[in-house]
C-alpha cells in the first residue's frame, strides 16, 4: 500500500508530474493568499474593535482612488492567475488532452465501459483491432467483437484488467455501452468521461512498474463504487509473455462465439 497516502498517490505516468506540479503551485499560492489575508483580517479585528470613547473614522472624501488602491492585492492574484494559465494550463492541457503524441508504434487499445465493468480490447501482435457491432453484444461477448473478421483473430478482451508495457505510449479509445462512466486511474492522473455515442481518445505513457487501480468517477448506477479494475505496468517482455498465455487460453478463432450460432 505504499502507493497511497494522504496526498496524491504515486505518480506513474509521464504527465502525472506536471499535474502534481500544478496542484502544488496552486495550493502554495492559496495558502499564501489565505495566510496573508488572515493576518490582515485578525489585525483589523483587534485594532478596530469597539472601545469606549473611540469613534469609527470614516475614510476621507470616499474617493475612488482609495477604493482602487485596495484592489492592488487582487491585481497580484489576477496576474498570478494569468501567468498560471498562459505558462502552465494552456501548454499542458494541449499536450495531455488536445493531442495524442505521435509516437512510433503506440499501443492502440479500446476500453468499453458498461454498467459496472471495464472491458479492455487488446489488438494483439497484428496491431489491428477487430470491428465491433452492437447487435453482437452478448454475455459471452461484452463488446460485440465480430470474430469472423480476420483482424480480431489475435485480439484479446479482458474484463477489468489493463496491462501496459512500461514506457510505451498507449492510446486508448474510450467507449460506453449504456450510461456515462469515467475512466479514472489515480496513479496516472488520468480521468476522462466515457460518453455513450462518443469515441474519446485518451493516452498515457506509464513510467513506473507496478499494480494500480482503475475506478469509475462518474455516477453510473447503484454499483458505481464497485466498478473497479487493476492496471499492471510490466516490462515489454512480461507483457508479451502474458499476452501469449492469454492467446493460448482463448478459444480458437474458427469456433466463433457469435451469439447467433451458439444457442
Amino acid at each position, binding site marked *: 500500500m505504499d502507493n497511497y497516502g494522504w496526498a496524491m498517490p504515486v505518480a506513474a505516468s509521464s504527465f502525472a508530474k506536471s499535474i502534481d506540479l500544478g496542484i502544488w503551485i496552486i495550493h502554495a499560492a492559496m495558502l499564501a493568499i*489565505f495566510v496573508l489575508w488572515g493576518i*490582515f483580517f485578525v489585525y483589523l479585528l483587534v485594532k478596530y474593535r469597539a472601545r469606549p470613547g473611540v469613534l469609527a473614522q470614516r475614510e476621507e472624501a470616499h474617493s475612488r482612488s482609495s477604493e482602487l488602491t485596495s484592489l492592488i492585492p487582487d491585481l497580484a492574484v489576477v496576474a498570478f492567475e494569468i501567468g498560471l494559465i498562459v505558462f502552465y494550463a494552456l501548454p499542458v492541457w494541449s499536450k495531455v488532452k488536445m493531442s495524442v503524441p505521435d509516437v512510433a508504434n503506440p499501443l492502440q487499445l479500446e476500453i468499453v465501459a458498461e454498467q459496472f465493468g471495464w472491458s479492455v480490447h487488446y489488438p494483439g501482435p497484428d496491431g489491428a483491432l477487430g470491428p465491433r457491432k452492437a447487435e453482437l453484444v452478448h454475455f459471452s461477448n461484452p463488446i460485440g467483437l465480430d470474430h469472423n473478421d480476420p483482424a480480431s483473430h489475435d485480439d484479446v478482451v479482458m474484463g477489468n484488467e489493463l496491462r501496459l508495457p512500461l514506457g510505451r505510449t498507449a492510446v486508448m479509445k474510450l467507449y460506453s455501452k449504456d450510461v456515462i462512466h469515467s475512466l479514472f486511474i489515480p496513479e496516472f492522473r488520468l480521468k476522462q468521461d466515457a460518453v455513450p455515442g462518443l469515441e474519446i481518445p485518451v493516452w498515457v505513457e506509464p513510467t513506473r512498474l507496478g499494480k494500480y487501480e482503475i475506478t469509475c468517477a462518474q455516477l453510473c448506477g447503484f454499483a458505481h463504487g464497485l466498478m473497479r479494475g487493476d492496471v499492471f505496468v510490466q516490462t515489454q517482455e512480461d507483457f508479451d509473455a502474458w499476452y501469449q498465455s492469454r492467446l493460448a487460453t482463448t478459444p480458437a478463432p474458427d469456433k466463433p462465439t457469435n451469439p447467433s450460432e451458439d444457442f
Partner: protein
Amino acid sequence: MSHDHSGSSSPSFREKYVFSLDHKVIGLQYLITSFIFLLVGFGLMMLMRWQLAFPGSPIPFFGRLFSAELAPNGVMSGEFYNALGAMHGTIMVFLGVVPLAVGAYGNYLLPLQIGAPDMAFPRMNMMSYWLYLPGGVLMLLSFLMPGGAAQSGWTSYPPLSIINPGQTVWLLSMVILITSSLLGSINFLVTTINMRAPGMSLWRMPVFCWAQLVTAVLLLLAFPPLEAASILQLMDRVFHTSFYMPKDLVLLGQTYSGSGGGQPLLWQHLFWFLAHPEVYVLVLPPMGIVSEIIANNTRKPLHGYKTMVYSMIAIGVMSFMVWAHHMFISGMSPALSNFFLVTTMIISVPSVALMTCLVFSLKGGSIRFNVPMLFALAFIPLFAIGGLTGLPLGLTVTDIYLHDTYYVIGHFHFVVVSGSIIALMGGTYYWFPKWYGRKMNDRLGLIHFWGSVACMVGIFSPMLIMGLAGTSRRLYDPTAQLHNLSTQGLNVVSTYFAYGLALFQLPFIYNFFNSMFRGEKTPENPWQATTLEWACPSPPPHGNFPSTPTVHRGPYEYSTPGRVCDFWPQSEPPSEDL
C-alpha cells in the same frame, strides 16, 4: 398614502396567515418552510454519512425503519444511497438555501429596504409560495415512488437519469419550482425598478437590494433553459423520444429501443447553463446580508460601495459564460475548455474584489462583536477557503485529477454551508427583532455559532484531503477501492463532526421559536441601523410605512463627521440634529 381596505372586516386567520398577500407573511412562510427543508436535507445527509464512515454496517436507530428493499436488515442499499445523495443535493439547493436567501429574506426585506408598501404583484407573490410548497412536497414524495426517489445525482445526467426510477417526479417538481421562482423574480424586479420610495435612487439602495436585483435577473434568465431541458428529459422518459439517447445503447443486455440520434452532452450544457448562475444565486444574497451586518456593526460606511455593486453586476453577467468549467473532462471538446478556463478566471476577479471590499470595510471601524457580526465575520475566512479551493478546480489541467473527487465536495460545501448558510443564520439573528419585535438570546447564539463553525470546518477539511488522495464522489462504499483506504479514517472524522453539527443546531431551533414569544423585547431600531427597514415599527404593520418615507442619503451614513449620533437613518430629513 391611504390604501383602501375595500370593505374588509378584520381579515380571517386564513387570509392573514395562510393565503396572505402581505410580503412579510409570505417571507416568514418561506423562512420556516425552507428551514424545515434544510433539516430534511440534513437528515438525509446524516444517513449517508453513516454509510460512508461504516460501509455495510446497519444504521443504528433508523435502519429497521426502512423497507427491506431500501435497507435490507438495516444496511443501506446502493440505490438508496444514490437516492439519498440526489435528494440531499436537490433539497438543499432548490428547496433549502435559495428559497431561504431569495424567498424569505428577499420577500421580507426588499420592499422594506426600498420603502415600498408591498411587492408589485401581491397575488403573484402568494402564488409563488403556494407553488413552491407543493413542488417541495412533490419532491419529497418521490421517495415513496416504486423504485424510490431520483437516483442519478442532483445533476441527473442522462442516459442514467432516463433509465433510473424516480426521475419523472423529480422533473415534474422541478418544473413547478422553476415556475415558482420565475414568478418570484418577476415580482422582485418590478418592485425594485418601479416601487422605490421617492429619493431612493438605485445608487442609494443597500447592497442587499443590489444582490437581490442581480439574483432576480439570474433566476429569470437562467431557469427557463433548465425547464426546457427538463421537458426534453420528461419526453425522453415518458414518450421514449431520444433527445439524450444515442443509437445502439445496450442496457443490461438488451439494446435500447429508442430511435437514437440524441446527445447526452446536450443535457449537461443546458443543466450547467442554469446551475452556475444558480450557485451565484446561492452566494449573492448572503453576501448582501454580510455587507449589511458588517456596515452596521463597524459603525462606518462600507469600503467601496460602488466597487461592490459593480462586482455583483459583473458576477451576474459573467455567470452566464462560465458554465462548462463543470464539464472540462466530460467529453466536451478540449478547445472549448480553454475558452471556459479564461471566462472562469475572469469571473474570479469580481468575487475577489467583493471579499476585498468586505475586509477593508473593517478598517477604521469600531467593530461590535454581537452574534450577527460573529456570523458575518466567520463568513469571510470560510468563504475565502471555499473560493480558493475553487482555483484548482477551475484550472483545466488540475481539474483532470480533481474533477468529481471529494475535493469538489469540500469546495462547494465550504462555499455554500460555511458561506451562504452561515450568512443566512447571521441574517436571522440580525433581522429577528424586525420580524418579531424581540431579540434572540445571545448565549444560545454564541453556543450555536462556535459549535457550528467548528463542526463545519471539521466536516469539510477532511473532504479536501480525501479529494487530493483521489477519492471519487458519490461512492456507495469507498472502501471497495484500494486508493480510498488510506483516507477512510477521515470519513469517520467527517461523520462525527456532521452529527456534531446536527446537535449544535438544536440551540438555534429552540432559540428561534422560544424568542418569538419570550425573547427580550426590543425597540424599533435595536442595532441603530440606517437602512429603511428600521424606520418602521417592528413587526411592521400591513403597508409597512405609516407614510411613504423620503430618502435623503446613501444607505450607510454612519459616524458622519459633525453629528452627535453615530448613525443617520436614510429617511431622516437633513435639518434635524446637525
